[in-house]
Each structure stands twice: as structure tokens, then as C-alpha cells.
């Protein structure tokens, strides 16, 4: 904390350049190329709307319902499915990973099964999710779950294995039982790895959610895009894509902050 108080001017100029000037330059260049392409007529507006048209549609979508709801409601629907599926994945995946890391028996029993299941892409679960859960709210949730589950398990498992053995031994000499060892030693010891895994899992989950909504669903951002496509409204598609990208970035940013927080407090 104290170290952050007195950066030298050279460092400050460097971080300012890196944090604001260069990213802004990149975004402006991209928007200009985009606008240039459409203005020069390289692509007809029907196939690629310009940034201005996309922005106008974006604003329009926030107060005029499209496919039954305004943009915010679609976003909220997606976020709710995301939270449910992702939350379930974290609550089951992390304990399973910890158990696999701690107990050889669990590891041997589960690892081969897990190793083959984790290579099935989340989207491949869509047919079964429709069969089991119908076309409503829950089907995409299952798909998200399958996307987020693997990184949760893998990182918790890895976290236990990379944990400092000395700390585990200290806990044992102090009389820690199974439960205290798990919750007060292994879980915190693995937490930096777990949080890194949660971040990866959040990205996976968000991407697989949109993928699932493209195929099944009656609300959500993926559904919005598909409706835009079938109405030949490319501006809706672009506005939806931008919302997906920005929301994903926001989720990742929040997870990154959590990761940094844990690392700082763990003295890493």
C-alpha cells in the first residue's frame, strides 16, 4: 500500500500512456476504419452497419422493446441464467476439486471420468439440456454450468497441489481435523488458484451462455441477436454483440479485481 503512494514521475507518465492513451488510440483507430469501410461503400449497410447506425440502434433498443423486451431486460435475463449456472458450477466444482486434491481415493475415482468429460464443449450439451429441461430458462443454465464447471474443478485441484506443504503439516501438528484442514487451510491456501480459475470459468460461462441462447431460449442477448438476424436487422445484431462484449469485459474486470485482492492479502 505504501509503495503505491510515491511513484516517480517517469512511472506515472508510463502508466498514463499505457492505461489511457494507447487503448483510446486503438479504439478510435478501429472505429475510424469501421466507419471508413461503410462510408466508402466497401460493404452495403445491410451487411455491415456503420458505427453511427449501430449506436443509434443501441440507444433505440434501450427504450423500444424488441422481441418482447428492451435491451436491459434481455441483458438481465442473460445475467440471471449466468449467475445461476455459474453459481452452481462454483459451488460444486470447487469442493470437488479440493477433494480430488486432498484425497487420493477421490482423485483416482474421479480423474479419468473428469478428464474425458471436460473436453466436451458446452454447446454439445444443448440437445440434452433441451430434452431434460425444455426450451425455457433452465436449458441455457445447464450449458453455462458445463462451461464453468471444468475450470473450477481444475484450479481448485491445482491449488491444493501447489499449496505449501509446510503449512499443511503445521496445521496437522496443531491438531486440525479434516474439516478445519479443508476449510481453514486447504481452501485458503488454494484460493489464489481458485480465484484465477473462477475468472477463466466466468469467461467460459458467459461465452457458452450466448452460444446456448442462439439455439434455445426466448429471452437474453443471444436470442436478441438471432431475432435480429431473422428480421434482417444487422444493426440489432451489432448492438447485441457490443452489449455481450462489454458485459463480458465487465465481468472479467470484476474477477480480475477479486484475484488481485486475494493475491495482495495472501502476501503474493
Amino acid at each position, binding site marked *: 500500500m505504501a509503495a503505491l503512494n510515491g511513484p516517480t514521475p517517469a512511472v506515472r507518465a508510463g502508466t498514463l500512456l499505457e492505461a489511457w492513451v494507447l487503448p483510446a488510440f486503438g479504439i478510435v483507430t478501429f472505429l475510424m476504419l469501421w466507419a471508413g469501410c461503410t462510408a466508402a461503400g466497401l460493404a452495403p449497410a445491410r451487411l455491415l452497419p456503420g458505427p453511427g447506425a449501430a449506436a443509434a440502434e443501441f440507444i433505440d433498443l434501450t427504450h423500444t422493446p424488441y422481441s418482447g423486451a428492451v435491451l436491459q431486460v434481455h441483458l438481465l435475463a442473460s445475467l440471471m441464467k449466468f449467475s445461476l449456472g455459474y453459481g452452481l458450477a462454483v459451488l460444486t466444482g470447487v469442493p470437488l476439486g479440493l477433494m480430488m486434491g486432498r484425497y487420493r481415493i477421490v482423485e483416482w475415482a474421479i480423474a479419468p471420468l473428469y478428464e474425458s468429460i471436460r473436453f466436451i464443449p458446452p454447446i454439445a450439451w444443448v440437445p440434452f439440456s433441451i430434452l431434460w429441461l425444455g426450451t425455457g430458462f433452465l436449458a441455457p443454465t445447464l450449458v453455462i454450468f458445463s462451461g464453468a464447471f471444468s475450470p473450477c474443478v481444475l484450479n481448485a485441484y491445482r491449488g491444493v497441489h501447489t499449496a*505449501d506443504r*509446510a*503449512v499443511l*503439516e*503445521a*496445521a*496437522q*501438528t*496443531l*491438531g*486440525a*481435523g479434516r474439516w*478445519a484442514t479443508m476449510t*481453514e*487451510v486447504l481452501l*485458503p*491456501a488454494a*484460493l489464489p488458484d481458485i480465484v484465477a480459475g473462477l475468472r477463466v470459468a466466468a469467461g467460459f460461462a458467459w461465452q457458452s451462455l450466448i452460444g446456448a441462447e442462439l439455439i434455445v431460449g426466448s429471452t437474453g442477448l443471444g436470442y436478441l441477436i438471432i431475432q435480429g438476424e431473422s428480421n434482417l436487422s444487422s444493426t440489432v445484431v451489432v448492438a447485441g454483440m457490443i452489449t455481450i462484449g462489454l458485459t463480458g469485459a465487465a465481468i472479467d474486470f470484476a474477477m480480475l479485481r477479486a484475484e488481485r485482492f486475494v493475491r495482495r*492479502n*495472501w*502476501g503474493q
Partner: protein
Amino acid sequence: MSEIRFEGVERRFHRPGGNFLALENICFEVAEREFVALVGPSGCGKTTLLRMAAGLDFPTGGRVLVGNREVRGPGPDRAVVFQQFALFPWKTIRQNIGFGLKCKGTPLTQRREIIEHYVTLMGLQGHGDAYPHQLSGGMQQRVAIARSYALEPDVLLMDEPFGALDAQTRVLMQEELVRLARDNPRTVLFITHSVDEAVYLADRVIVMTPRPGRISAIIDIGLVRRTERWIDCEHIEEVMAQKSFVHLRSRIWRLLRGLESSGETVGRAMETGVG
């Protein structure tokens, strides 16, 4: 019933190039409420011995017994102060010190009292809510010591517990340990690199030689300490100025240098060594 007994202990480690014999034919006993110090060059197997008493490592030959029972695993009856501290980085100093008590199920109010007692005893006031990485190495070491004292175990296993301390704090901690040992004696196995420390603290000093780790001599300090009444001295420097202390210290130094190989061969070793 807390004596520690090593019966013909051997420890081999598997290494890529074959077996490595770290300890060979180790036989000694730390009697109940006795303070035994282990000295010897780096790599002679001191930590390995201590880990076997703690139940964190096991002999490949012979037996290790604590209280007449073979050691099968770690437990809170044998507190360990680790050479590398092994504090919990995610717990505050108070939580670190109180962890063993919490596992034991000590009620919260009583636990708080004990924690505060050891925070003060170890000179850690004002740092109770800090995290280990925010403390200096010497302070971390004192937390590690407090964490094991707090359990009031029958057996204390200490691996260079004062190694990271500055000279003044080290002396304070040594005097504190002597006080603790006098008021409430425990069975202590204590590893140190400092001959002075070993002679000042221990009832007996065990000198080890490396490759493979073996016991080269066991020196009784307790008798001298009692007859010369070191206990009457309030400070370590007074003890260290005693003739008896200086004599014992140089004797151990000679052993470590290999001039003297063991009690009964002193004469011969001295002759060849000097000649």
C-alpha cells in the same frame, strides 16, 4: 508420559542416483521434562530427526516412540516450531496463535485471553491484527513460537526457533525459555546452530556428525548447571562468563571440529589432533 525415544533409527531417502542414507543408528532418549539440544553441521539430519518425533516423517529402520507409543502421525500433544515458520499467510497474527486452541475447542473468551498473553509475552503488541507477510522475519518467528506455546503441549519440538532473531531479541527469548522451563518444565527437543544457546538452555547436548548423520557425543549440562547454580544468574551473560560454561562450550566446539570423537577416546583424539 511424554518422553521421546529413538531406538536404532535409520532414515534413507530415495534419490535419482540411488539411496541416500541420511541417518544411521540413532539411539537416544529425551526424558520426561528434559531439555535436549541437538547441534551439528548443516545437513546432518537434525530436522529429519525432529520431523520423525513430530510424526511428519517416518524411519526406514528402528522406532521412534513418544510416551512409550510408536509415533504414527502428528498431533497437538507435540507442538512444532518449524525452521521456516510455516505460518498461515491468510490468518492474522492472533488467528495464527489461536489456531491450535480453536482446533482443540477452547471457548472463545478463554482463547482470547491466552492469545493476548502470548502476544504480550512475545513482544508483538500492536501487530495482533497484521498478516504474517507484513512482519519482519524475526517477528514471524516469534509468532511461530507463540503458536506452539499457546497449546501448552507436553512435548515441544523446536527447529532453530531463534535463528531469525536479532542478538538482543534472541537473548530475551532464550531467557524467557529458561524461565518457562523452570516454572513449567516440558519435554523439549531443540535444534540449534549456536553452541552457546545449546549449553545455556539444555540439560543435555547431543552432537551429531554428517554423512551419514550419527550421534558423536552426548554431553550432560544439567549436572554442571545445578552444581554451579547457573539458575542464580539473572542474565545470560553472567552464565556465559562462568568457568564451567566456558569449559563446556569449548568441549562441544572441539567435538564439532572433530578433534574429539567421543567421551572415552578423548585422550587419543587429542594426541593425534594436536600432533
